[in-house]
């Protein structure tokens, strides 16, 4: 009798255990199952002859996505694969969203993907597209490439959505009235991080800056944030070691960080050349923030609030990988285009630009509040996710930072500080 009870109990335990394990690993497995189920349901639907609501198409919009082939940089961390399809699935999902809405309104969307190869010239290729009469571009390009586009005279007659470059210059002295910037600028990111550190009262910083140009720019943004929020930078160093840190970090980092009094080690290392190797190796036990450790992001794989779970699931089902920031920016850009056309019912460039920069524009983008564009420089207003590699820590703006227009404008350069003139 007792044996039988034990047997039942052990069966029960192993059953519930296997259930728990299954539940944990549901990600890939469940996504695959859903994919399969989707296909079967689609077949059944077709069998039943179910009709889709489709209004006659009266408006067709072409969207061009441009990315550039790049030489892969040597990276120290070989954990994350180097993606060659960043942005693609973001655009694809957003186009599907636009098409679904468009089906009910008689709006059609077409997208072309262009990848500029290493041996090709961006300006020449871009001019070809302009000649074909293309008007709406989502571009995965860096600062220099965007600046080179600005030299093309006909560029003023089209809409450009930047989905990669975070440089403040593009939103200030080099701004253009028809360039929209989806990524948060370096100063938005540094303010978002600083607000949180101030809230934690971690106001003594040790700032380490990497060797690249963008590291320097981000570092400058962090310094102005420190000034803005009354934070003291106790120590500042440039990282210029060239050795491969994978074997030597244990020796180099303690000496590099010895002798300073600080609360947090703030790192500006965009390409991850050394930042990952600072944690757990500093002389004093201190947390790492900035481009490594606790990082300000526009999107992160740990983000699940405000419907983000749906977005993460849809993206992973489509692509088989996690959504990156560039993917999210691309999705947002194409959705912003769709939302505008849905509301104003035309796809004229000037009308769209006015609506995008106007007060009526607002887009749900899984951030809890609507995102919109700053009318003075085309920067997307958005909450910033502060995340550690495996957990969401906080969302900025932090409580208590108030603003007459939008609390989101406590992040980055506000209208009075902006040097952008349209």
């Amino acid at each position, binding site marked *: 009798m007792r044996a039988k009870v034990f047997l039942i109990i052990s069966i029960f335990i192993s059953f519930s255990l296997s259930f728990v394990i299954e539940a944990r690993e549901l990600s890939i497995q469940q996504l695959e199952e859903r994919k399969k189920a989707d296909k079967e349901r689609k077949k059944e639907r077709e069998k039943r002859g179910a009709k889709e609501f489709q209004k006659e198409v009266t408006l067709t919009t072409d969207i061009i996505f441009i990315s550039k082939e790049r030489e892969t940089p040597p990276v120290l961390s070989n954990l994350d694969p180097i993606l060659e399809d960043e942005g693609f699935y973001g655009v694809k999902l957003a186009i599907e969203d636009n098409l679904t*809405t468009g089906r009910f309104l008689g709006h059609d969307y077409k997208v072309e993907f262009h990848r500029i190869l290493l041996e090709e010239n961006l300006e020449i290729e871009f001019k070809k597209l302009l000649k074909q009469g293309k008007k709406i571009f989502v571009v995965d390009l860096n600062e220099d490439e965007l600046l080179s586009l600005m030299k093309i005279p006909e560029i003023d007659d089209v809409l450009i959505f930047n989905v990669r470059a975070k440089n403040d210059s593009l939103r200030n002295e080099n701004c253009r009235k028809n360039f929209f910037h989806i990524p948060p600028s370096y100063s938005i990111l540094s303010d978002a991080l600083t607000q949180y550190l101030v809230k934690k009262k971690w106001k003594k910083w040790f700032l380490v800056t990497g060797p690249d140009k963008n590291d320097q720019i981000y570092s400058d943004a962090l310094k102005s944030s420190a000034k803005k929020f009354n934070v003291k930078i106790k120590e500042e160093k440039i990282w210029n070691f060239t050795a491969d840190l994978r074997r030597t970090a244990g020796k180099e980092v303690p000496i590099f960080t010895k002798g300073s009094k600080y609360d947090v080690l703030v790192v500006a290392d965009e390409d991850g050349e050394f930042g990952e190797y600072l944690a757990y190796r500093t002389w004093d036990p201190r947390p790492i923030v900035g481009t490594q450790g606790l990082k300000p992001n526009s999107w992160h794989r740990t983000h699940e609030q405000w419907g983000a779970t749906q977005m993460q*699931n849809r993206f992973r089902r489509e692509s088989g990988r996690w959504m990156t920031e560039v993917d999210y920016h691309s999705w947002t850009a194409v959705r912003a285009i769709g939302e505008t056309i849905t509301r104003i019912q035309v796809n004229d460039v000037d009308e769209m630009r006015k609506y995008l920069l106007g007060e009526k524009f607002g887009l749900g983008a899984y951030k809890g509040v609507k995102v919109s564009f700053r009318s003075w420089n085309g920067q997307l207003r958005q909450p910033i996710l502060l995340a550690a590699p495996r957990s969401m820590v906080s969302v900025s703006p932090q409580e208590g930072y108030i603003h007459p227009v939008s609390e989101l404008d406590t992040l980055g350069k506000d209208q009075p500080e902006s040097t952008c003139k349209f």
Partner: protein
Amino acid sequence: MIKFFYIIVACFTFISSSVHANLAYITNEKDNTVSVIDIKKKKVIKTVKVGQRPRGIIMSKDGKLVLICASDDDRVEVRDAETMKLKYHLPSGPDPELFILSPDDSTLYIANEDDAMVTVVDMNDKMIIDDIPVGVEPEGMGLTNNGKILVNTSETTNMAHFINAETLEIVENVLVDARPRVAMFTPNDKEVWVSAEIGGTVKVINPNSKEVTHTIGFEIPGVNEESIQPVGVRHTKDGKYTFVALGPANRIAVVDQKTKKVIKYLLVGQRVWQLAFTPDQKTLLSTNGVSNDVSFINVDKLKVEKSIKVGRFPWGVVISPQ
């Protein structure tokens, strides 16, 4: 042994006596549980383990069945309202979120958030009859008293889809504000109110002309505009009030159903989402997701009487009809 027997009998009588009391069922999204509340006593009397990520919850008209959307299990659980034991699963599409039963309990309409479909399930055969392609991330479901017009809202497409419940075809699509969450017909079926979480408004639509007749906005001193996020909508049967849950504004707006003017804001728990009336409509319950509690509101006095703790992230609420 005899003592043991008594305990069993005692338990039994306790359970059967509690059936006659009015019960509220709350889905706790992060706990995978349902809290059962005795409304008279304002107490949680039972916490039941259910499927993963429970959200939408409704009951059959006779009060015998509780239906729960187990979103991460991709199915609908049907439980005995008395014992809360699982009776069977109903098929649904991926990620069911909200649903509604036809007036005769024969048909279930489910919004499947992950695949832009409203799935129609036959409750007798327990089979999917049809899928209606709607906008992206469908959520809110409203139905007229006669069960002839179904309204579904889609969160990313920002539309209210009017569906003929007999032919299961879309008749018209009405643009509303960003992220529409709930569609609710007034008791006389002459209006359907659609809340927009990100847009911060409630649109009132005439179901015959499909025109937006009113846009209700909300302004609360000291609360920033961005945190006013309307979700749950409930109308009183007498046509007097409409209650709108305002999410992270932590308040419920009391709106005059006729003039569409806001009369009052009731402060409840954090991130208030869904609402439900007791059958006599004297009490309204709200689920407050972040503070993990449920508020009791006195409808006559328009006052919050009490809040009680439930599980983590309470999402949906339904109250037994008897």
